[in-house]
């Protein structure tokens, strides 16, 4: 009787001990640096790296240090750090692919110090102060338009998740604008549109559903069009029109390319629409 009792106790204990996590055989431990910002980063980094009974990674968001324990017979730090980089995080060994980093939520967008600047793009500084100011201004707007185009591309792909992330980026860029260095004409337009722009892009960021995002995108596009008129961008932008959306009332959007890729319908009717104005 006693032995049966013992057995009853022993079995669950056994089960417990085998299912217990973190028991890594042939364990080796290393410390490495992984770039990142916040708690959300910590979660992503750790879940990208961890494998039951093989890898356990602990990342500290303040020191950016990660302690990795791993089974030496099954894996190596390179494999683990590669997974971390593919999740979007630069580290000592690997740089994240461009789109993995771009896909991170706004708060996780750490400064990419490890990434060396591209040599062709390091242009010598100009001494003309007005030119600098001018370039700062257009840069302010350029960042907004860049975010907008990324948002549009996500809608073209009918990718609600990415669209949400891009809308967050857009909101961040909109909030960054320093009004004091805007030209007069720009300032006037900016005051008219910025509240609506921020409100609508926040709505897109929080909307879970692609249809709701597209509805808000109509308004965002109208405001962006007004802004574009004074933004003085270096490259031409195409103002395009889909006659069917919005119950046949039609809707517009801006694009970097003349070929039509409809953000309101995506692949359902990708090339529906036409360019109605080219803004240079």
């Amino acid at each position, binding site marked *: 009787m006693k032995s049966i009792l013992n057995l009853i106790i022993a079995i669950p204990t056994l089960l417990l001990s085998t299912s217990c996590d973190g028991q890594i055989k042939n364990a080796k431990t290393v410390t490495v640096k992984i770039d990142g910002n916040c708690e959300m980063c910590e979660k992503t980094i750790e879940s990208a790296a961890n494998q039951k009974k093989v890898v356990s990674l602990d990342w500290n968001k303040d020191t950016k240090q990660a302690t990795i324990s791993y089974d030496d017979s099954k894996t190596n730090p390179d494999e683990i750090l*590669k997974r971390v*980089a*593919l999740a979007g995080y630069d580290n*000592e*060994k*690997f*740089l*994240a*692919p*461009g*789109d*993995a980093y771009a896909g991170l939520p706004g708060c996780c967008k750490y400064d990419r110090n*490890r*990434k*060396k*600047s*591209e*040599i*062709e793009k390091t242009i010598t500084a100009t001494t003309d102060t007005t030119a600098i100011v001018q370039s700062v201004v257009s840069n302010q707007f350029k960042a907004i338009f860049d975010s907008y185009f990324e948002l549009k*591309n996500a809608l*073209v*792909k*009918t*990718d*609600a*998740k990415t669209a949400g992330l891009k809308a967050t980026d857009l909101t961040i860029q909109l909030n960054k604008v320093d009004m004091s260095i805007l030209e007069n004409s720009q300032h006037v337009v900016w005051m008219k549109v910025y509240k609506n722009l921020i409100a609508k892009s926040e709505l897109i960021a929080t909307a879970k559903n*692609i*249809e709701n995002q597209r509805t808000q995108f109509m308004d965002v596009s109208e405001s962006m069009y007004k802004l574009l008129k004074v933004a003085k961008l270096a490259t031409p932008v195409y103002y395009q029109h889909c006659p*069917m959306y919005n119950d046949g009332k039609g809707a517009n959007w801006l694009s970097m390319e003349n*070929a039509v*890729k409809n953000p309101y*319908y*995506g*692949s*359902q*009717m*990708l*090339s*529906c629409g036409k360019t109605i104005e080219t803004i240079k």
Partner: protein
Amino acid sequence: MNYFKYIIFGIAATLCNYSFAQKTVRYDLFVRDTLVNFAGKEKKAYSVNGQIPMPELHFTEGDTAEIYIHNELQTETSIHWHGLILPNEQDGVPYLTTAPIKAGTTHIYKFPLVQNGTYWYHSHTKLQEQVGMYGAFIIHKKEKQELPEYIMVLSDWTNMKPFEVHRRLHNANDWSAIKKAKIQKGAAQSYADAIADKSLGIKLVNEWKRMLAMDVSDVYYDKFLTNGKAEDEAPQFKAGDKIRLRIINGSSSTYFWLKYAGGKINVVASDGMDVKPVEVDRLIIAVAEIYDVVVTIPSDSTAFEFMATSEDRIRNTSLWLGSGIKQLASPLEPLKYFEGMKMMNGMIKMDGNLDDMGMNMSLQQMDMNVVMYPEITGRKNDKKTKEHDHSQMENQYNSNALSDIVTLNYSMLKSPTKTKLPDAPTKILNFTLTGNMNRYVWSINNKTVSETDKIMIKKGENVRIILYNNSMMRHPMHLHGHFFRIVNGHGDYSPLKNVLDIMPMETDTIEFAATESGDWFFHCHILYHMMSGMGRIFSYENSPPNPQLPNPKKALKRLYKDDREFHFMFENDFASNGNDGEMMYMNTRWKFQTEWRLGYMDEHGYEAEAHFGRYFGKMQWLFPYVGFDWRYRKMHGDVIEKNIFGQYNTKDLRNALCFGVQYTLPFMIVADGRIDSDGKFRLQLMREDIPISKRLRMSLMYNSDFEYMGGLKYILSKSFALSAHYDSDMGFGGGFTFTY
């Protein structure tokens, strides 16, 4: 006097040229058996001069190549010079153009090099190419090139012997799908996967239309290699360097997607011939295809990944350009198999033919597979909520219109020089590429190489081939000894190539000037398709006899042997109630098959049936046979069994000849009707290997003798499975199944 000067000058110049062109470059290649460990296990392979891939061979245009092949293998071999313009007997197809290189002998190849560019060389004997016999063959331009270069030879490696791979393909063995599913969930496309994907309806239509699981590539490979390594490194390059990569796909059956982490890829040549540079984000390189590309190293202290991913996206291999911290390229996300299946369901007609719905597909422009690519058509969970009536058919599969990613296709290739063919009579040929996945039969116009005569062509004429791919796989079609132009809308500047990748449902036109003599092979370069007979032979009228083939008729028979080969298959279920098994010996059209059910007691009975028959039709659904049936079963008392037709069953002891016909119905149910020499009819319906989940298969059978059977099999390894079945004769049984 002046005149004389000119002549002297002329002669001197010619002599000068002559001596330059006369430079002979000699290589000695020693082919040996070797053991390699590419993927965790030591395996047999063939090496040349101790290495895999075979050594890079470098020449300059105008040189004469003199290459000694020393065959130190126990078996014969051959070397084909892929893409080279050379005399017919130097082409290296054993038994067709060149004498086979017997074991222990040396063969000398010698030919002038009349072209420049990136080419390759490989064995053209059996399946030797799969185990290491491939290498780069570079002919440099006479003038020095300003860009630094790097060669990238891609290949695929399996731990399974190529003979086994080939045999299993012909037996529709799905072990390779199970191996893939270990890496990528859902790759087996079973009913359980379909339910998990909410795509049960799609799977049902798919089986209704008699299709097996969608397979983007047939073979499971354990490793993909760049220059014989999982990852190759070229740290010598610095920021700002522009590098010409000569990329050769030397794999046996793998297409690769090419991507670069450092920016755009500039395509400058294909199959050895220059093209007008074209900038893309990615390209697919077909089996045996070659692309020269130029890439730039954008920044310092960084190694940029040039990544090649197999088309099924199971694995990749990389080249790191530059040194320092490694900049990764983003990997390709797993395929949406059920989206692909849905697309195929729409395209395939009940008779097995494909229907392009009037889309006139050609030149890789409409890639039906984009429905499976998350980066082009979005991830599964972001799927659009409602279909729109206006959906734009012409762009539905156009990868470049659907996304910002620029993918190379053949319509973007343009020759820098005029490639117009001479004015001459044109011979027009129509080739429909045909195939049958279930029995792994691959052919042109439903005929294999051995089932057709050579196609006679005349020197001086032009040959135009209109290819239509009516099979469900893409095929890299390769022409020996010639370049063809791909008629792609660039008129006089149509590009020259020697490999054409043609996707399902595409129609492409290629044409070449017949300028040579002798016999030239035109075939699918997927090794296992070629060995199954997917090809044709072009033969020039009035060619001089080939000194290397003293008995051309006998030689041709040897060549035909390749696709006439019989494949053996054996399966036995060792169960608690008896043994149950079958054995098959079959080739493209013929099959010998025997089945047995052996109980352990007289009451359970002993049965054996043997059939010999021939498959008919492109899809091979019809199989008439003759056979023999023997059975013995001790019955208790005087039980007399009657069948549906009111005939009495003589199950206790029967020796009968039988004549029958099998037909594959929708859902791949095989209906088998037969009559035996005692005048008994039997009609039977059977479906084997229903994929319930990744490893679970179900079989069902019922016949007009009121016999029935249901069985389940859980696949443990490539040879063993656990099995359980219920049989109306032998009752319930469980055990294990051995499959060879």
